[in-house]
């Protein structure tokens, strides 16, 4: 009986703790939005963070995009050739990338490259009392540190996803057209005819903006909330990657289900 009470107490305490944390994160999100004026009034702060979060993520995004596109080209050709429609390879590669793989894989890469860096940076600033010093100098750390990073993430994410998709399409072209020998004209013209800007491209952009919000919100919150110790920052960084990766996959399913019109 005592053991059951202990288990129930532990469970209750964990659930209550989780709800508190969610509430704190929501309040933090609201505060970040409220203090976002600085991020736009002094846009150079945001530009600097776009460089760190976006530009420095370019290599991993472009290289991954190229390889994903090349694999898509190989696998897509292997399937399509069985039905005699290998000319549709361009459509398959483009739709897969713009609607799904581009935003999702770029989101996962962004979470591990930029999200973890944002959490670690803010967490270390907290641990070394830099945030406290800022507050003591009458400068709000949410306005000066958090908001520019938050908006930099939101701006960078769709651009990175678009570059990922473009690089992926190039990879598919390299493998499909250059190596395997699919007709060049069919590859591009079918893609042009089948990919709709509003239905396909905008869907991908919308998804990547949502992923950008989710990832950077989680990253800045985890950094700001991290216990000010080496272990605390390390755990917060891990939590950012795990939580934001799961959030990307879950949000992708929800958005795809809402946008799905096949039934």
């Amino acid at each position, binding site marked *: 009986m005592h053991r059951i009470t202990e288990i129930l107490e532990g469970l209750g305490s964990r659930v209550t703790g989780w709800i508190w944390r969610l509430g704190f994160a929501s309040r933090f999100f609201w505060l970040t939005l409220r203090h976002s004026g600085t991020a736009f009034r002094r846009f150079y702060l945001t530009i600097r963070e776009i460089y760190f979060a976006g530009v420095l993520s370019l290599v991993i995004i472009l290289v991954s995009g190229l390889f994903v596109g090349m694999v898509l080209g190989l696998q897509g050709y292997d399937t399509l050739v069985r039905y005699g429609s290998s000319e549709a390879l361009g459509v398959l590669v483009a739709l897969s990338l713009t609607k799904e793989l581009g935003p999702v894989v770029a989101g996962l890469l962004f979470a591990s490259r930029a999200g973890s860096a944002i959490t670690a940076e803010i967490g270390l*600033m907290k641990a*070394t*009392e830099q945030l406290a*010093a800022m507050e*003591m*100098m*009458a*400068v*709000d750390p949410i306005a000066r540190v958090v908001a520019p990073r938050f908006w930099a993430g939101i701006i960078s994410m769709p651009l990175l996803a678009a570059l990922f998709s473009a690089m992926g399409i190039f990879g598919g072209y390299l493998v499909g057209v250059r190596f395997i020998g699919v007709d060049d004209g069919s590859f591009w013209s079918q893609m042009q005819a089948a990919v709709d800007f509003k239905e396909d491209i905008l869907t991908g952009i919308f998804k990547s903006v949502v992923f950008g919000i989710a990832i950077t919100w989680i990253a800045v919150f985890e950094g700001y909330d991290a216990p000010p110790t080496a272990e605390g920052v390390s755990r917060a960084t891990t939590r950012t990657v795990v939580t934001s990766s799961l959030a990307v996959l879950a949000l992708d399913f929800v958005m795809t289900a809402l946008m799905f019109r096949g039934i």
Partner: protein
Amino acid sequence: MQPGGKNGGRSGANSGAPDNMVEVDKVGFGYDRRRLVLRDINIAIPRGQMVAVMGLSGCGKTTLLRLIAGWLRPITGEIRVAGKPISRLGRKGLFALRRRVGMLFQFGALFTDMTVFDNVAFQLREHTDLPERVIADLTLMKLHAVGLRGAADLMPSELSGGMARRVALARSVALDPMLMLYDEPFAGLDPLSLGVIGQLMRRLNDSLGATSIVVTHDVTEALQLVDYVYFMSNGVVMAQGTPEEIRNSSDPMVAQFVKGESDGPVPFHYPAPDYRQDLFQEAMLEKAILEKAA
């Protein structure tokens, strides 16, 4: 030497002195209402003075500094800085007051992504509309005052501990504050850097006409530097006086602290049962085991 005793005019904000920069009036604080970290603290710091708050680690002196800085709010009593009740100020009011307060953190807390120059210029850029040329002049002036004008282009990671503390000092006085708060300014410094920082603190306090509160447990340096000392223990001010009075104090705890003796009212050993009894019990236990085995 007791609060409200010999120097009764200083302790207790109700002394009516109009020129006190900081008044801590019957303040109690605890992270949990049932367990107070600070109890009935009464401190009054006149303008222009340099005051040390000393005591053993964990006695509540840093908590007191955080209360004066407005980071924490007291559970009982009131704190006034320049006549303003800091615990009742909103965020806007608190920030307005903090522009006139400088703080030196224990390890400097320099912004690691900025150069020494940008660190010192930070407040000037955030809070003034001065042209960059004027900001540069003021920043170099502050750096010159701490002897580090030549290090303006270095990054904090390229500085020694003492240099970093001097840069942090230059940054904290960038807006010529009326009140300076020092949180363990001598921690981890070599004797040379320690002396330099101490002299700079005194010189800046006097040249700016500021008031300074130094939280430290570095007895030798603090007693040479400050005008008045509050000695804290277990969350209360247990002694106060001029450095001379503290040096000659007959209070056993103050005397132990000043002389750095390992044993006294603050015991060397953490509470534990009698060692002889412990050893005897262990021997008895071993004997019983051996007998059982035989």
